[in-house]
């Protein structure tokens, strides 16, 4: 039963992984197909040359809208993460290029401790300025300069050997900042060539420090998205899919589609509950962080799996969002044209569907496990309870049978075919044997006494005759001892047959209705006389004490109990006799201080010839209690003995005589 949840969890995990892998396979196939059709666009890929990545390359980020040329970056649709950094004279220079429709936008933030403006009399070269260099296919460079006379809109000039020409097609704005200055520029698209570079001139005391975005002698390649490829990609875009096409260096040439954030389909659950997240973390493979699936803000994809794809290796990868549990499956496929790799295609898919399935499976699994466990537990509990109930019932019945010496009583479960039934039948068998043994013991006493009487008579009568013969003194002594022995034997025989006699008496009893407390009261007085060294206390709590039976026998029974009480107690001990009534039963108790009844004799106390005494003071055959029991039961009552604090109590229950 414990295996079920574990197996279920394993199953869910495996299924999720399998589904994911399946999705990856499918995605791979799709990517291959798309990559194949991309082979028809070599030019688009090769627009930036065949060289691989170098730091001189500059990416023009596609923008969602045209920023206002006001020197502020906050209306750009890309984030700070896209800014590139250069080391400037006074600190970091950050810049970024963006494109929107027919324009290219430049934003640059320069740290400059002392900003110098172009004031009359100063040469442009001696003030802080930023140069934009762009080169065309033939290698010819065009040089644009951004300087400011004052913060605000600035004029852009094209620097040439013939002199600076104002470029009115540019729109630029210079903004002073606490740490330096910012420039935001709008440039017509056509003015930007194949290559692009930035030079930041920081004019200081006498010297100018130049920071360049390119390390070689000419600016690096300008890469931006390809409209053609973008529309191509859009053709393949579907909800839950993201297509990215990069060139050989990894620059994003096109991107289409989007992952789960676009999905509002109710079929897929939105945000999983906390416990579900815990379940995912516990059960499912973790994968890489989902953030890594997002397009790189720099414009160039650097992921391991994409880098390998750029090295002509088909790769798959997957990521999981720890917050939503969602996984993204990604495939990176190299794109070829002829026998040249031109770039890579990255296909990503959201696995919301898998997640939902996982969710459902998990829910169902948990529900099933709970039901199965509960069912199993209840089943087991129920069965165990039922079994222990049967055993308890059997145990009670056995106790009851023992207490009442009723061996023919039917044991519960006697007909059952299982182990409890076997136990029950064994009990019955044992009880019957016990009863047979008891019967044997009982009859043994009377049989023995009967058999022994005759030889005893012979011995005694011979001794009596011997008395009349002349005997030496010594002989007389011997006969005396013999006679004493005979008398003792006689007493023993008498007590052995007493039980029999009592039974007969009970059968033939002429019962009368009498008041029990009067009888006991009188008898107690006699006990006081008979045993002055004990204290006898009689306490009657009820006046309604009429019993139908034989008072002599009741007294005889009481005699037996009091005999025992006296024998087991010490001088000056108090023996208390109590009489009370509950319902239609009278309860007679005889208590004495003294040693307790042995536990193992509990059921055998009232049997014939069973004695719990170890002393040999009297020729005790253990018959007294047997007779008491015969008398009690003969009156329709019962007797039991129990240990109480510091002593022993015998309790007789007799039915009250009803009118």
């Amino acid at each position, binding site marked *: 039963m414990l295996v079920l949840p574990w197996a279920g969890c394993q199953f869910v995990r495996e299924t999720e992984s399998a589904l994911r892998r399946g999705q990856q396979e499918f995605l791979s196939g799709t990517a291959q197909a798309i990559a194949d059709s991309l082979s028809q666009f070599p030019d688009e890929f090769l627009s930036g040359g065949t060289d691989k990545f170098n730091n001189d390359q500059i990416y023009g980020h596609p923008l969602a809208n045209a920023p206002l040329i006001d020197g502020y970056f906050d209306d750009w649709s890309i984030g700070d993460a896209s800014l590139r950094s250069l080391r400037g004279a006074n600190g970091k220079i950050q810049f970024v290029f963006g494109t929107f429709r027919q324009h290219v936008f430049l934003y640059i933030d320069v740290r400059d401790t002392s900003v110098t403006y172009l004031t009359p009399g100063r040469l442009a070269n001696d003030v802080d300025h930023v140069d934009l260099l762009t080169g065309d296919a033939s290698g010819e460079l065009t040089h644009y300069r951004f300087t400011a006379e004052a913060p605000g809109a600035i004029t852009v000039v094209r620097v040439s050997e013939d002199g600076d020409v104002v470029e009115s097609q540019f729109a630029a704005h210079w903004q002073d900042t606490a740490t330096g200055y910012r420039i935001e520029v709008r440039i017509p698209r056509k003015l930007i060539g194949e290559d692009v570079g930035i030079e930041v001139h920081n004019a200081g005391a006498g010297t100018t420090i130049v920071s360049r975005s390119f390390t070689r002698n000419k600016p690096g390649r300008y890469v931006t998205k390809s409209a053609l490829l973008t529309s191509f990609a859009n053709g393949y875009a579907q909800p839950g899919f993201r297509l990215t096409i990069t060139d050989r260096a990894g620059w994003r040439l096109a991107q289409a589609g989007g992952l789960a954030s676009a999905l509002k389909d109710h079929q897929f659950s939105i945000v999983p509950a906390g416990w579900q997240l815990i379940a995912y973390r516990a059960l499912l493979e973790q994968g890489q962080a989902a953030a890594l699936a997002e397009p790189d803000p720099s414009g160039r994809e650097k992921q391991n799996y994409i880098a390998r794809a750029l090295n002509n290796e088909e790769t798959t990868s997957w990521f999981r969002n720890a917050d939503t549990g969602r996984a993204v499956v990604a495939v990176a496929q190299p794109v070829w044209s002829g026998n040249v790799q031109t770039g890579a295609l990255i296909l990503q898919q959201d696995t919301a569907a898998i997640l939902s399935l996982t969710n459902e499976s998990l829910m169902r699994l948990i529900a099933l496990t709970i039901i199965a466990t509960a069912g199993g537990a209840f089943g087991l509990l129920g069965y165990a309870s039922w079994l222990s109930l049967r055993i308890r019932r059997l145990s009670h019945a056995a106790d009851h049978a023992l207490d009442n010496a009723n061996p023919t009583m039917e044991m519960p479960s006697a007909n059952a075919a299982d182990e409890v039934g076997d136990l029950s039948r064994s009990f019955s068998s044992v009880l019957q044997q016990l009863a047979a043994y008891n019967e044997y013991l009982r009859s043994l006493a009377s049989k023995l006494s009967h058999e022994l009487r005759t030889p005893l008579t012979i011995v005694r*009568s011979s001794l009596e005759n011997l008395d009349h013969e002349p005997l030496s003194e010594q002989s007389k002594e011997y006969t005396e001892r013999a006679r004493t022995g005979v008398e003792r034997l006689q007493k023993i025989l008498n007590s052995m*047959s007493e039980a*029999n*006699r009592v039974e007969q008496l009970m059968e033939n009893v002429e019962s009368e209705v009498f008041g029990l407390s009067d009888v006991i009261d009188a008898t107690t007085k*006699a006990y006081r006389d008979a045993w002055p060294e004990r204290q006898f206390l009689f306490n009657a709590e009820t006046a309604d004490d009429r019993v139908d039976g034989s008072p002599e026998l009741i007294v005889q029974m009481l005699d037996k109990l009091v005999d025992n009480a006296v024998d087991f107690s010490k001088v000056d001990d108090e023996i208390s006799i109590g009489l009370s009534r509950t319902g239609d039963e009278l309860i007679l108790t005889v208590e004495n201080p003294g040693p307790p009844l042995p536990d193992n004799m509990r059921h055998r106390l009232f049997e014939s010839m069973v004695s719990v005494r170890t002393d040999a003071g009297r020729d005790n055959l253990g018959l007294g209690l047997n007779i008491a029991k015969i008398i009690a039961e003969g009156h329709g009552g019962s007797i039991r003995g129990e240990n109480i604090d510091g002593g022993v109590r015998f309790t007789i229950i007799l039915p009250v005589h009803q009118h």
Partner: protein
Amino acid sequence: MSKRIAIVEDEEAIRENYAAAFRREGYAVELFEARQPAMDAFDMRLPDLVVIDINLKDEIEGGFELCRSLRAKSKNLPIIFLTARDNEFDAVSGLRLGADDYLTKDISLPHLMARVAALFRRMDALLEPQTAESRIKRGELELDIDRMTVRWREQTVTLTLTEFWMVHAMARYPGHVKNRQQLMDAAQAVLDDNTITSHIKRIRRKFVDIDENFNAVETVYGMGYRWLES
């Protein structure tokens, strides 16, 4: 002439021992070990007293049989049952058959002798007229010590010797409690408690047969019995 006592007992040792005791007392003794030979002898001549063992060899109820036939022959012949069986039922049947006494073999020889002597005395007294000195009157009870008879309200109550001696012991001092030991001594026997109880019951029953309201024998629980004089 010495009285003749017949002993019918199958156990030889007991038979011989009893015979020795009786002879010592001066009685003439005839011994039989089975019912038939005894019956044959009795057909010819009846003894003066018969002691019968109830279960004779080979015949379980042989003793009862013998008693019945003897009683048929003589109404007054004293018959004593002697038995190892300590059986209430037997006692009642035996006495109903007309035996004068039912004794267990527990009885000591001296007691047996006393019993037999008493029976003979009674027999003799029955043949004599009643003398005033032998009578004791207690209310409606009249005891004749010699004859060992009892009358209640002028009617004879047939009691065995044991019963007579018990009544005598109680009624001699009405109101006095006689404990079991005293009753036993009076009955000249060693009796266990239950036997005494049985005897008292039988005594009461015999009186009640004559007088429904008889309650002169009172049980004093734990102490004994006493005769109540109204």
